[in-house]
Every structure is written in C-alpha cells, then in structure tokens.
C-alpha cells in the first residue's frame, strides 16, 4: 500500500517532506504528545 505523502513543519519551522526521502526508508514514530 502506498504511504500517504506528508509535509509538516519540524521543530525549527522547516517543512519535512516524505517525498524528499525516496530511496531511503523512513520510520514514522507517532506519539501522543507531551501534554
């Protein structure tokens, strides 16, 4: 199954795009958040 593309701001505000990382694997760690 194709993984949905994603483009989100990192901690510095720069956009991180999954599509920029083709050719390598990406491990997406979803977590609850520090609330």
């Amino acid at each position: 199954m194709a993984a949905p593309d994603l483009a989100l701001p990192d901690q510095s505000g720069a956009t991180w795009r999954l599509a920029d990382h083709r050719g390598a694997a990406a491990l997406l760690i979803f977590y609850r958040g520090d609330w």
Partner: protein
Amino acid sequence: VASRHDDLTAAGARVVGISVDDPGRNAAMVDKLHLPFPLLADPDGEGAIKPYDVWNAEEKGGIAHPAAVLVGPDGEEAFRTVGGDFADRPTEDELLDEVRALGLDPVEQAAPTPGKPQPSDRALKVRSLVPYFLGGRFTAMALGMRLPDAEDEVARYVDEMDRWVAAVKALPRD
C-alpha cells in the same frame, strides 16, 4: 528509538517523530532529550496522523495513537505497529529487524535544526508544590495523634515539610 538511531540509519532508515505538539514544544523536546531526529508538528492531525489512520479522537480533543510506520524506499508502507510503547526494548528491536529486512544501504540523517523552545503551559511551577508539602505536614500531624510512639518522627517530618515550604516561598516567583 532515539538510542537506536545509529542502528536505524545504518540499516537505511531516517526517523521522524510526529504528534499534535506545535513546533515550539517540539523544539523544547529535541533540546531537552537531545533527540537525533526531527519532530514534526501535526496539530489537527490532517497532515499525517489522520491520513495514516492513527488518530485517536477520544482523548484531549484528538491526539495520535502511539504507532510506528515504516515506509520503504519505494514509498510503499512496509510495516506498521500501533499501540505499542516505544520505550519497550523488544519493540525497538522489532523495528530494527523490519528495517534491516529491507536490505538497504546506510543513510545519513543530519542532526535536527534547533528551533525556539517554548516550555509547556503545563510545566509544573515550583510554587504549586506548596500545597503538597502542607498536605504531607497535615497528614503527619493527624497520624501523630494516633501514634504517640512516633512523636519524634512526626515532629521531624513536620519540620522538614516546613523547611520545604519556606524554601519554595523564598524562591523568586516564576
């Protein structure tokens, strides 16, 4: 996962963390935990958490379920685990095994760019500890009335709680 970051990049995977926290909170986390990978902000879940079907609408107005999704170099989802605790060593080993199974070349992952850390509104203020010390003091006194033999210990405990309260009150207001 942070402790296994070198192994994961050696096996060909870059790591990102994703939650509803905003970039300021994530900057504070990266800074505090010296994380070797970036944290991405998805406050409403629309950017990744919902598309990846790990949205938990039941809690706190919506947060991510704890989950790991491995995306292969072809953009296909290779593996996922949902609901685990990633402090668990077996889960980390399992993730590493899954990455190694892809048989990829090692990759680099640059250290995350620092942001502007913003402490959480939920961070505990030192002054908010005072009621706990007073509660401890009161409990010790109440117990002391029932335990005459423990008079000295109760007195020491009450003194100690008084010292803590005085120490906290002597701090500048935060």
